[in-house]
């Protein structure tokens, strides 16, 4: 594919580099930040998982990158959103339209609502192709059939003329993926792509995504709440809590030795297929309301390792190993005046 050559030319720089992303919404409770100072990178051809619970800002992060947050009430600010050398944050709406669906494509959670019920699936795939590529209708139709075959839809030359309601949930999600891949995107953002599907269908879709990534060499930003899906699909993981990144790193060390108490709590709270425990270790309390975020570290009211400094100061992004970062005071010897020195070292020792 033509895009592949481009991919290898500048394989040194990351494909996407987001710095200082902040997305706020005007609500009845005032201006509420849904995403508050998020920075990360995605390398070419890799799969990065963005995990967290509902309301942590993971979907808003992806929509902000795509500039799909409507103003009002939403507002996206960022130092930069560098995608393949271009700064998306400075782009006009017109320029963004050439990126969306073409260089960055998205797959959403609900395969029922992301397709238009009154158009044939073939027409919906062709729309993206005709919009972004200079091809005739006939060629676009052939490309649509080829895409349906690629995503594993049986007898694609017949299916191309069917409507979404003729298809099952799994098949619809395949169609959505076909649309997303129609222009050979460099980055695919998949927002909970399998959450609405049954497990055996989820396994099919995950398998399909992995196969397509190998074939097409695109990068995937996989947004999910399911740590099992992350463990299976991703090379790197970004964990979000209350609008901030709390931990980031390669998947194996992050799962084996989570550095942030929230990551640790998440991993401990899921029932696992390969172990038996009489009780699950729950994280006490609930996620804070976006308009009433706690001071200091946003996780401190629920954290068993919290110490005085956590209530006062927001922890910086600290290195905790090869390519790993965590935003937690446990990982520093830095002792500001507010903190009681003894408490700091004893808490750090426990970790």
């Amino acid at each position, binding site marked *: 594919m033509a895009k592949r050559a481009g991919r290898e030319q500048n394989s040194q720089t990351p494909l996407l580099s987001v710095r200082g992303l902040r997305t706020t919404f005007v609500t009845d409770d005032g201006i509420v930040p849904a995403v508050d100072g998020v920075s990360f990178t995605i390398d070419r051809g890799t799969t990065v998982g963005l995990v967290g619970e509902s309301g942590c800002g993971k979907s808003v992060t992806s929509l902000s990158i795509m500039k799909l947050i409507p103003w009002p009430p939403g507002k996206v600010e960022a130092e930069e959103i560098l995608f393949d050398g271009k700064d998306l944050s400075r782009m006009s709406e017109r320029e963004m339209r050439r990126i969306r669906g073409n260089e960055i494509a998205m797959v959403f959670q609900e395969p029922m609502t992301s397709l238009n019920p009154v158009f044939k699936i073939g027409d919906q795939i062709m729309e993206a192709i005709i919009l972004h590529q200079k091809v005739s209708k006939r060629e676009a139709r052939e490309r649509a059939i080829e895409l349906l075959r690629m995503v594993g839809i049986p007898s694609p030359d017949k299916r191309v003329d069917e409507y979404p309601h003729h298809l099952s949930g799994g098949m619809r999600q395949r169609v959505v993926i076909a649309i997303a891949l129609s222009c050979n995107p460099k980055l695919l953002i998949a927002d909970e792509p399998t959450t609405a599907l*049954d*497990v055996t269908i989820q396994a099919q879709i995950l398998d399909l995504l992995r196969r397509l990534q190998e074939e097409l060499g695109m990068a995937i930003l996989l947004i999910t709440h399911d740590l099992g899906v*992350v463990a299976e699909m991703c090379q790197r993981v970004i964990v979000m809590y209350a609008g901030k990144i709390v931990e980031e790193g390669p998947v*194996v060390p992050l799962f084996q030795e989570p550095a942030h108490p929230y990551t640790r709590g998440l*991993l401990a709270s899921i029932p696992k297929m390969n172990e038996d425990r009489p009780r699950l270790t729950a*994280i006490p309390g*609930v996620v804070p309301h976006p308009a009433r975020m706690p001071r200091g570290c946003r996780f401190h009211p629920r954290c068993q390792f919290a110490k005085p400094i956590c209530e006062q100061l927001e922890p910086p992004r600290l290195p905790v190993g090869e390519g790993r970062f965590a935003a937690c005071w446990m990982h520093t010897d830095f002792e500001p005046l507010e903190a009681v020195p003894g408490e700091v070292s004893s808490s750090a020792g426990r970790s």
Partner: protein
Amino acid sequence: MPGAHEPLVRVEGLVKHFPLRRGLWSRQAGVVKAVDDVSFDIRRGETLCLVGESGCGKSTTARLILRLLEPTAGKVFFEGKNIFELPAREMRSLRKEMQLIFQDPYASLNARMTVGEIIGEPLVVHKLAKGAALERRVKELLEAVGLASYHAKRYPHEFSGGQRQRIGIARALAVNPKLVVCDEPVSALDVSVQAQVLNLLKDLQDELQLTYLFIAHDLSVVKHMGDRIAVMYLGKIVEVADKASLYQNPQHPYTRALMSAIPIADPTVKRERILLEGDVPSAINPPRGCRFHTRCPIAQEICAIEEPPLRMVGEGHACACHLVPAAASASHPAGAGTKAGVEAAEG
């Protein structure tokens, strides 16, 4: 067989077909075979899990057991009494013994009632308490589920999903039921909150000697909660066994595929995945023979012709597959598929 050995609930040959109506005169155009000849026992104090994918009939089965639906055929015995033969008045008083916890904590609480009214309502309906006694009981229930007594004055919208689910649990426990049917009680919750609710359900079971029928699609949640597990596919039970036996030694090809499909939250675990082809067929026109044969990786000729009976394949382990050999000693321990269930399936 009266006494403690008698199961709390015995389900025999339960069938529910929903008519499918079409056209101006609501002509019956077919039937949806939601539950098709299902038999099992629920023993006192245990958690029996019904697991399967959407449309497999697990929720319909639960609603039949609670007699929220009338069956097309079959019996459900609750403490020896066939609930479908009970007159309305006796049925109403029996409802105290069986309660339901719903999946959606947002839809299952009346937004216009205070939490105290919601939890107290079953007590009022069954005339079990009023006045100060009612208030005291509501307070006690709130504390039992990890909420505070002052929450009684508040409305559901003031609570998070996990807290609302606790309110739903308190309401179910208000009348001191023997059986609690939990229909996907945590699937709408975030993982950290899910753990809190699962722990609470386990604690309450120990404290109050509850029997649970736990319905879920998540096999890892089922593994954590269940004592015995029944796997359903297209209206049929394909495998029943106690937890250890099912997870260490799954027999039915569908159970195996289902287990291998669950993503494990450990990136170092590499597994052989059995990928099933295609989708679950429609329950309107289920495949002949074994209902799973259209997707089964090891299907043989016989599977398309003859329906496999649920039969014992090991100690307390029953499976409905032609290709899994029956246990040599064809004993029917009152565990897996019940004796009645096995006979019904074979007959």
